[in-house]
């Protein structure tokens, strides 16, 4: 009878039982799965002893000691490191989408390794960590420089981090496309492989990971203060900016160190803290501890799955980056189901501080951008390099040049217009500065289908590409509608769902990248927009379509102005909130799909153009939409021209250049606001 007292609730808050249970299941499942292939070759004792010894006469034992055991150890080590880094990142930014991936650290590390491979192979042989850390610090340095004056406000940091990710990612891709044959190993590194054949990397890594983890834990108390909110923390004497910067620095070191050995294993740092929180970790200590453990278990499981998949198929390597992405996707979807409280979502803490630029005359701004657009068209049609050197094509001879220069220019411009419009729609609809077709996953859906086509080896003509991409975009849209219906199309849930779709696309892309250089460069070419394939018919078709949809958009200006006021206010003004959101979603998706087949899914014009419109002082919906469309068109027109001329007779994908050009403008705009 007295035993019953032990079941009485304790007074101090305790972690729910499901947390340790889930962690134990995850770890045991992963360990058993990882050992399974060794059944029949080594007994359990011999396998366990593979972690410290081996039998030179038995090659299975050598293999277990030098291949399997270090791989398991490094998976757990790296997983724990990334899980901890992710939890710290989410804590300092108060944002469940924050992770080393989202802050640009991984893109930075990859950029560092690429540059080192091309220009300093000696450095790479000496220490890959240095190159990766250099790149990671460059990325986070840019993020910090951009957001310094805004006091590292969470939204701005994430926003800057994303743009840096796109920017460095695009630079990286440019190298891969131009020098693909020379960078065969980077395709694997980018895909993330945990294959080991020595204890060396693990022995080098564990002390660093341990030291960094201890340093992070020393920040525990200051981080706890941050949980109280910025102003309370300030009043308690915590130096908020300094703590954040220090913590970010440690996150960079951890991520770059960890990842320089095995490549980009994205999303572990995002998924582990999300999982820990979902399972009930509430206090900061709990979050850090369980996120670390979850990270280790998750990565071991992901790596085991990758290893199994490698041996089941035709034997070719399935990179671990693929399976982490496949596991990361569902975890984010899980998060989508449970984060009903959108309190900590990005974009909810007002617009980023200082993001109200001076209003400017719409006529003047529109006029200037139109003039620039016209100038771009003239230069693009007329002034071009040939095999014998540069020459002008007179207006009278444009009909000869038209077939090579015209359709692609027209199509690029229209894709920019479509993305500018779609981006404005989505940012207005979600009230979220991170919203864009790219983030919504519609581009990702289209790209996923293209990746599958490349993987299957089927060859499709241009019409097939168009059809497949549209199908993919529609599929992604359908999925989003189903997911979002539960939340009445509320903005931030949509973004999370879109991110999950993007994660799946990423998985396929990694698989292709690891499978071989030439296939990969072909795919990357499309992903970043190969405007050179556009025919006249397609360009004119796109023109008609864009005009049609733009007409439809006139109908939605009113709902768009009302929606951000909040659901209640919008309903009381006589708006059917759910139906208006559905229509907006549909228009945004159609615009995105048509642009994606031309320019690929990764141009980020849809993110950048609406921002530039605001930077240029256009605040009301209609004006922002018009200026964003023009800016988008200008961006891609310039990008298409540059893609044709900068490495003539080679070509760069136009979308990639758009990401570069747009990224620079955007960063400039952001930093300017910091100063004001």
């Amino acid at each position: 009878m007295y035993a019953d007292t032990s079941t009485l609730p304790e007074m101090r808050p305790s972690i729910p039982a499901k947390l340790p249970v889930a962690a134990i299941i995850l770890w045991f499942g992963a360990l058993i799965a990882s050992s399974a292939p060794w059944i029949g070759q080594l007994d359990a004792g011999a396998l366990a002893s593979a972690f410290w010894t081996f039998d030179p006469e038995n090659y299975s034992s050598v293999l277990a000691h030098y291949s399997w055991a270090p791989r398991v150890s490094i998976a757990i080590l790296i997983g724990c490191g990334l899980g901890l880094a992710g939890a710290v990142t989410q804590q300092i930014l108060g944002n469940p989408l924050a992770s080393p991936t989202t802050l640009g650290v991984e893109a930075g590390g990859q950029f560092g390794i690429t540059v080192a491979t091309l220009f300093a192979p000696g450095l790479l042989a000496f220490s890959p960590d240095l190159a990766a850390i250099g790149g990671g610090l460059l990325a986070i340095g840019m993020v910090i420089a951009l957001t310094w004056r805004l006091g590292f406000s969470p939204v701005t940091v994430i926003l800057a981090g994303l743009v840096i990710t796109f920017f460095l990612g695009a630079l990286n891709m440019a190298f891969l496309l131009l020098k693909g044959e020379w960078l065969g190993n980077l395709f694997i590194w980018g895909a993330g492989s945990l294959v080991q054949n020595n204890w060396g990397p693990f022995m080098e890594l564990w002390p660093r990971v341990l030291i960094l983890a201890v340093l992070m834990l020393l920040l525990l108390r200051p981080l706890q203060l941050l949980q109280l909110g910025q102003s309370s923390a300030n009043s308690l004497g915590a130096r908020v900016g300094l703590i954040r910067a220090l913590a970010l620095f440690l996150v960079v070191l951890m991520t770059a160190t960890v990842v320089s050995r095995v490549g980009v294993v994205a999303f572990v740092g995002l998924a582990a803290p999300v999982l820990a929180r979902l399972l009930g970790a509430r206090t900061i200590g709990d979050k850090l501890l369980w996120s670390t453990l979850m990270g280790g278990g998750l990565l071991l499981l992901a790596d085991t799955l990758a290893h199994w998949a490698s041996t089941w198929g035709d034997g070719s390597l399935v990179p671990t980056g693929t399976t982490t992405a496949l596991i990361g996707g569902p975890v984010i979807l899980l998060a989508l189901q449970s984060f009903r409280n959108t309190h900590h979502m990005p974009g909810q803490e007002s617009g980023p501080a200082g993001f109200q630029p001076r209003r400017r005359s719409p006529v003047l701004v529109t006029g200037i951008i139109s003039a620039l657009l016209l100038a771009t068209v003239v230069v693009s049609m007329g002034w071009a390099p040939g095999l014998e050197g540069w020459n002008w094509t007179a207006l009278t001879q444009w009909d000869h040049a038209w077939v090579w220069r015209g359709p692609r220019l027209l199509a690029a411009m229209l894709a920019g217009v479509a993305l500018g419009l779609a981006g404005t729609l989505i940012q207005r609809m979600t009230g979220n500065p991170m919203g864009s077709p790219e983030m919504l996953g519609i581009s990702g859906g289209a790209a996923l289908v293209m990746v599958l086509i490349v993987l299957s080896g089927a060859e499709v003509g241009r019409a097939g590409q168009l059809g497949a991409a549209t199908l993919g975009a529609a599929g992604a849209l359908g999925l989003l509608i189903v997911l979002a219906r539960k939340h009445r199309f509320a903005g931030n849930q949509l973004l999370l769902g879109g991110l999950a779709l993007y994660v799946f696309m990423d998985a396929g892309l990694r698989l292709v990248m690891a499978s071989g250089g030439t296939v990969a460069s072909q795919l990357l070419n499309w992903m970043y927009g190969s405007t050179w394939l556009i025919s006249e018919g397609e360009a004119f078709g796109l023109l008609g379509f864009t005009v049609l949809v733009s007409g439809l958009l006139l109908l939605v200006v009113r709902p768009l102005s009302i929606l951000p006021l909040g659901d209640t206010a919008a309903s009381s003004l006589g708006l059917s909130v759910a139906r208006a959101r559905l229509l907006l979603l549909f228009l945004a998706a159609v615009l995105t799909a048509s642009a994606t087949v031309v320019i690929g899914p990764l141009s980020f014009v849809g993110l950048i153009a609406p921002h530039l419109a605001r930077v240029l002082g256009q605040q009301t919906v209609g004006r922002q939409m018009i200026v964003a469309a023009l800016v988008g068109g200008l961006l891609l027109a310039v990008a298409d021209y540059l893609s044709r001329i900068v490495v003539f007779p080679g070509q760069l994908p136009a979308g990639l250049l758009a990401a570069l050009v747009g990224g620079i403008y955007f960063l400039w705009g952001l930093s300017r606001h910091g100063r004001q």
Partner: protein
Amino acid sequence: MYIKYPARTCAALLFLGLLSLQAAAGTWHHENGTITLDSTPKRIVALNWAATEALLLLGVTPVGVADRDGYSVWVKEPELPDKVANIGTRVAPSLEAIAELEPDLIVTSSEMAPASGLLERIAPTYVISVYKEGHRPFEKASEMLTTLGEMLGREDRAEGILADIEQTLDTQRQRLEEAGMTDRPVALVNFLDDRHVRIYAPNSLYQSTLDALGLENAWPRQGNFWGFSVVGLEAIAPYQNSRIAVVSPTLPGLSDTLADSPFWTYLPAVRRDEVYQIDAVWPFGGVFPVKRLATMLTDSLLEGGSDNVR
């Protein structure tokens, strides 16, 4: 006028008839339809390196090739003259540059399928894919060489090249058989870094060399359509009976890293000193690399192996 017209038609017909006496004119079926040539093409553009190689073997210098500089680094033989124009990368060539060269024949593969309409606007396009799902690379490369020989009026030369390759393969096979070197399988690999290799599969171009030399490929699985699989180094461990042929280039510092790795030094092939490193051979070429690999592999096997890459 009314009377002259048939006369001109007659003349034209006669002219065409004369042309058709030449070997070149004719119609050929290819992967994307048919191609009709009225006269021997003089200005040819090759959009991949297998086609470039075939043209050079036939003694025809193309006016433009894709990724010219890369060809000189990776393929090397047969040598490409400097004056040839570069028309861009192999995945995204510049259509404008191709058009500027005013070619009368374009040779490409089905990888360029999305651009086929635009290419046809410039010149008749011959589409043949040496590397594609279900194709045997050496057979397709031989077909490309023979067909180009017909189009260019150089059938004899094409036949001569193929006969020479066959003879070289026979000679090398005899050398290996006399030395008793054909009994155990060979794994053909390229090191990508110290942990990963490209391993050449039974559907690769290299397989033709192995078959002709009477050697067994250690790797039993199909690769991607280029004929290779990217695998972790541990994937070759189970094939304990096999020898390892490493195709150059290898990254600087690789031999040191491998020497430090007991996993590598305990590999049965390494313990038996059966690692053979051969010079670079382009694995995605036409017929020529088959011959080059046969000679180099035979030389290397006869010379004896070592316990590490160079």
